[in-house]
């Protein structure tokens, strides 16, 4: 019970202090809007292609929204030592890190709806299987956040966290089948695609939005969930090893 008071308080404080700040809101909104606009305009080939672009745009919005937040909520607090307060609080490290990432996950989910709302005005979304899209969005948000967490707990400076996460994010745009299927990626690079959880999440979205998934949906769900668990526990282990001296 007491741990949950701490949990919600941490989530609320992060929202108040970081997420709901104008720069982050605008970053969180403008970024997805810009991606959406860019791809929808670029496609130019008629509005039905919006459906094939939508999964990629959703994924990008989540990926950038979540990963950039962790640099603030974790790396920044680690540097000004306020993070020590959390490590000293009588709350398990697992619950603590869920609280620290909870806000970012929520932020990612909200971001995902920016392109969806745009698409709603531009095309007919009646064939979309929402019951599949929603859990996929949540899982993409969780796995991206935990990837950001892993980066945040592996570096020492905020700028390192940002540089390092770009090192992952940009290749992921091309390797994870966001805008063209991974089957069209050069064979040599293709094994890399399978290393990113986003690949599986996007495949679910492709299936649920326009029916063109490569792997089976249950397999995709299982793998991305597996990634979430592994990323989380590796992050926790890193905190134990590096931050509790």
């Amino acid at each position, binding site marked *: 019970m007491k741990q949950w*008071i*701490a949990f919600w*308080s941490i989530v609320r404080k992060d929202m*108040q202090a970081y997420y709901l700040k104008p720069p982050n809101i605008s970053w969180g909104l403008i970024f997805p809007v810009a991606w959406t606009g860019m791809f929808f305009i670029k496609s130019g080939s008629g509005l039905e292609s919006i459906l094939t672009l939508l999964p990629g745009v959703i994924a990008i919005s989540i990926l950038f929204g979540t990963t950039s937040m962790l640099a603030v909520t974790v790396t920044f607090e680690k540097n000004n030592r*306020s993070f*020590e307060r*959390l490590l000293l609080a*009588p709350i*398990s490290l697992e619950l603590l890190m869920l609280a620290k990432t909870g806000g970012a996950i929520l932020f990612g989910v909200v971001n995902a709806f920016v392109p969806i709302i745009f698409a709603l005005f531009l095309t007919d979304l009646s064939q979309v299987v929402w019951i599949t899209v929603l859990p996929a969005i949540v899982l993409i948000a969780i796995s991206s956040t935990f990837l950001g967490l892993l980066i945040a707990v592996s570096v020492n400076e905020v700028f390192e966290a940002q540089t390092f996460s770009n090192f992952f994010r940009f290749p992921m745009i091309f390797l994870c089948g966001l805008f063209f299927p991974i089957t069209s990626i050069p064979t040599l690079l293709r094994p890399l695609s399978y290393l990113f959880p986003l690949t599986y999440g996007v495949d679910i979205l492709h299936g649920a939005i326009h029916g063109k998934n490569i792997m089976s949906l249950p397999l995709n769900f299982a793998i991305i969930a597996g990634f979430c668990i592994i990323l989380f526990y590796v992050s926790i282990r890193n905190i134990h090893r590096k931050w*509790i001296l």
Partner: protein
Amino acid sequence: MVAQISKTMPTHENNPLIEVSELTKRFDDVIAVDGIGFTVGKGELFGFLGPNGAGKTTTINILTGLARPDSGAIRISGLDISRNPKAAQHLIGIVPDESNLYPELTGFDNLCFCASLYGVQKSEGIVRAKELLEQFDLKEAAHRKFAGYSKGMKRKLTIAAGIIHHPEILFLDEPTTGIDVASARQIRHLIAELQRAGTTVFLTTHYIEEAERLCERIAFLVKGQIVRVDSVANLLQPIQERKAMLISFLNGGSDLCDKLAVTFPDYEFQTISFEQVRVESADIINIGPLIRFIEEQGTQVTEARRLKPSLEEVFVRITGIELNSVGREKEKAKGS
């Protein structure tokens, strides 16, 4: 004398809240804490006194779960901390050496947040936050961001944040460093009050006077080792009757102390620095011959002053180290 000893022979010794033995921590090639052991009784105000780098913060970090010991046993309230550092965190309040609250939040929000970390209900947290802000003269600044606080205000808020959940044990890491005399006095007053109310306090400081004024028992920590741990009365006892002087001169060279010792076998000498020697004796110190002798060595004596029996004396006697900061603290106190 008897009364004094019985007052300070803590009854809480039989009822230890913190028990540490053989605690060791090394960082690469530095041994930060070197096999220390001590106990702190329930309700006691225990001081850890030592120069910079002695291992005070490291010890606190280990006891509170922010660092892992390499070896040794720690029990807090009977709970084994060396195995599970989280086990006793609900009993503990910490005021770290650096004021590390959230710069983005106001003073009030910071306190409420810290209370909630320990499971204090929101409504209760608000009440306590208001009380503490009042008590620490921070009411006016309550709704300003922590980032904009002055150093002393930050320190006070950090202390308030450490006690808002009413911890059984409070760890204070140099609580009065870097703040003005009035605020320091206020904080010492508060620490004494907390102890009277039953809180066990573990205090680190390099201000000897602070330790002497506040603590019941003190451990002298030097280079990661406890050189002495005892009640203040017991520590002071052997020097009560002894006479001591501090003689200052212009650079006297490294062997002056030895020469003095040969010439004046009745006195004990200790080199404090190239410019200072400490003289001690069971009887009256005859200063004239001493000064003449030093000046014959080609050095000019600039000051000779009698040292009152104080903990500072004891510390120097036991460790051979003069804590420079003590002088500064005294200057500041005089200035007020």
